């Protein structure tokens, strides 16, 4: 073991096996398991907690391409998985962010963070089939299985999606995977107002054209103006998200006609992107690279019909806004801590669950907590009665 736990103070634990993880876990408290720590505030340990760095518990356990399933240890970099799948023409349809930054399989599940591409086939929760985790008493528990359809026992794999390390230490995950579209294409359409853009987004999302992604961003997100550190952005420069990006994926021969029908439906021609430039644009959006670095960032759980109200609220405050997954996810960024207070109040008035991703608002990561707290507390009590993983 690289670090021996001592009761004197927090440090980093680096287990190399499940057995070591169990020993370290039982000797330390509180503990937060984490991969590469790419998810900012989500990866911050509770106060005084030991960090359990899971990255040595890595490796693909099982991959049979014809099964459409893969099993990997929690610390496996998503990049390893993505490359392995790609070599067999497969992919992770939930489009996880921060792959290049080192994000791990366990972190993808614990954060339940999916990318814009989750629109068509579903998010992390829809692709987790099985899990092995250490509970708060050091027991190794398995839930779910390794087959794509399974209704036996409680669905612990789903429960661990979004659990942020508070219910147990994920040590292994089985995911469903899909054949990858052979090519992707994107059309970028500039609309005049946010209302118009939001209406177009809703129309496409409920159309039978089944886009892979529909996102709404400010023009800068496509032009790439904000990524350059030498161009600090003033809040007043934040322009409304009137640029609509629509992505489709499939047979290369089919894409142009498919995009053409999207354009016809929108009543506008757009800028068509293919190949590397197209892929790079979506990586930038997925990893939020275009947002001003170091700005405070909040993630909103929306529905498309809430988008206009969210936009009025956030626009008034000068936040940078990105609406992803056809209006089901909102990203809002403000320059500094000084802007938290008003933003938090505005989001509470909006009522949709909201979580701080970068920066720490007073009162914890949940700016607007999701419902079900009483139920969650009971689950927590069952799996972690001693609060080894800190509060929910």
């Amino acid at each position, binding site marked *: 073991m690289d670090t021996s736990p001592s009761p004197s103070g927090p440090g980093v634990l680096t287990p190399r096996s499940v057995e070591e993880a169990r020993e370290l876990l039982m000797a330390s408290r509180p503990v937060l398991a984490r991969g590469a720590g790419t998810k900012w505030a989500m990866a911050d340990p509770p106060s005084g907690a030991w960090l359990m760095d899971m990255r040595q518990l890595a490796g693909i356990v099982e991959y049979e391409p*014809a*099964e*459409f399933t893969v099993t990997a240890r929690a610390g496996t970099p998503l990049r390893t998985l993505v490359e392995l799948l790609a070599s067999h023409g497969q992919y992770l349809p939930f489009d996880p962010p921060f792959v290049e930054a080192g994000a791990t399989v366990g972190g993808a599940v614990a954060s*339940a963070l999916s990318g814009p591409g*989750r629109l068509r*086939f579903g998010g992390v*929760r829809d692709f987790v089939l099985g899990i092995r985790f250490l509970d708060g008493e050091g*027991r190794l*528990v*398995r*839930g779910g*299985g*390794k*087959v*794509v*359809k*399974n*209704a*036996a*026992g*409680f*669905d*612990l794999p*789903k*429960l*661990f*999606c*979004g*659990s*942020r390390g508070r219910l147990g230490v994920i040590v292994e995950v089985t995911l469903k995977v*899909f*054949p990858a579209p*052979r090519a992707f294409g994107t059309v970028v359409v500039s609309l005049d107002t946010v209302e118009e853009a939001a209406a177009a987004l809703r129309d496409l*999302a*409920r*159309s039978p*054209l*089944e886009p892979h992604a529909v996102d709404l961003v400010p023009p800068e997100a496509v032009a790439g103006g904000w990524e350059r550190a030498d161009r600090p952005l003033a809040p007043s420069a934040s322009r409304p998200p009137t640029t609509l990006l629509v992505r*489709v994926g*499939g047979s290369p*021969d089919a894409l142009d*006609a498919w995009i053409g*029908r999207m354009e016809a439906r929108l009543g506008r021609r757009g800028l068509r992107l293919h190949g590397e430039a197209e892929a790079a644009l979506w990586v930038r959006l997925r990893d939020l690279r275009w947002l001003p670095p170091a700005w405070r960032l909040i993630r909103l*759980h*929306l*529905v*498309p*019909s809430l988008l206009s109200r969210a936009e009025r609220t956030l626009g008034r405050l000068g936040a940078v806004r990105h609406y992803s*997954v056809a209006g*089901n*996810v909102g990203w809002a960024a403000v320059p500094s801590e000084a802007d938290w207070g008003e933003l938090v109040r505005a989001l509470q008035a909006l009522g949709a*669950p909201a*979580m701080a991703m970068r920066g720490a608002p007073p009162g914890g990561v949940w700016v607007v907590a*999701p*419902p*079900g707290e009483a*139920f969650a507390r009971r*689950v927590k*009590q069952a*799996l972690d009665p001693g609060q080894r993983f800190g509060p929910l």
Partner: protein
Amino acid sequence: MGIEKELARIYPPDARVTEPVALAAYECDALTAVQQLPLAVVFPETTEQVVATLRLCHEEGVPFVARGSGTSLSGGSVPVPGGIVIALNRMDRILRIDPDDLRAVVQPGVVNARISQAVAPYGLYYAPDPSSQVICTIGGNVAFNSGGAHCLKYGMTSNHVLGLEVVLPGGELVTLGGESLEVAGADLPGLFVGSEGLMGVAVTVTVRLLPRPESIRTVLAAYHSLEAAGDAVARVVGAGLLPGAIEIMDRLAIQAAEAAVHAGYPLDAAALLIVELDGPREEVEADFLRLTEAIRASGAYEIRVARDEAERARIWKGRKSAFSAVGRLSPDYLVQDGVVPRTRLGEALAEIERLSARFGLRVANVFHAGDGNLHPLILYDGREPGALERAEALAGEILRLCLRLEGSITGEHGVGLEKRTYLAEMFGPDDLDAMRRIRLAMDPREVANRGKMFPGEPVGEQVGVGRGPHPLERAGLLSRM
């Protein structure tokens, strides 16, 4: 009797039943082999009534089971001895349809197929489609995480439930999840779905709707052997295709379905493969070319492509009626539901054939090949002494086979009463204990569907054994899958 008086305070006379004759209609579900008279049946129409009932059960220690149409094939909705049945069929309103948000909020008693009918004018549908979808309810689908033919591409019920209002066994009303596609925090609706009624009663369900696919191509291929049909599945998947459904029926199932509904299946086939592609026009047309190549190369001796919706409907009608149709071949049968890795389907089928010979019982096979979800139908004659026991033993061997191949003991029917023993063969003591602890945290008195799913829970001694088709099945309303 105290509990009856208490129920009378919650329910008007036409919403409760305590007469033994009337109770008999609720003594079993579609697993007709197990029967149990309940103490009473109540028909709540409001959430408040469910809250009051569960509070009463908790306080008095009276077990309950909530049920819809009773189509469970695993005995999951058989009454608990000495307990009451909460029949949710009157809570059957579609509360809201939000076409822009692609959501509907419904009560648990809504019949599955009704959601798709109600949202059809908006060009939308609800994806999970168990074969019993014209009669099974959403509440039951939620309890058992039921699937259907389209799970590989579209996922099971849990992938389509975003939010729930649940009455916990103590009577507390909680909201889990919401309406966004992205569940915030630990996925509580995901945990509730498939919990087989052990965590309480769902009183509203927010489901995700999908745009109806613009284009569908359904192909029926006939083979001279079951193995060839199995190999065809590997070829289709190997071609990088993602069909909405891949189904296989064996000779016995084909004959039964043909006799029952005249689907026009080739009667000389040893196996039929049904593959369906769905999606945007461009995508489906491009994939269809690759699909037909793969099927041609797989040695099919006859290939039919549905030319219109009527032909497609006929192909599916045969498939979906295969189960009840088998009733024409045998006085009794058990429907099993196990899952194996898709690449080991051939191995599983060969072993099922050996087991069938060893036990001297015919087995018809219908399965969701895309998901590895087997549905062997074990035919027996209940009048013959020991036949049911032999059929159950054979069913058990098939489940063990699924476990040996690293599959699952259920793909969509749930564990219920029937497979409790096998759950302990699938999961270890620590796994089951974690689930038990969650169950007890929600329901310390174990009143919610006591005795189901967990191997250790006492079930009571009064469960009887019956035989023959379910009353709904006799009426032609129920298909066992």
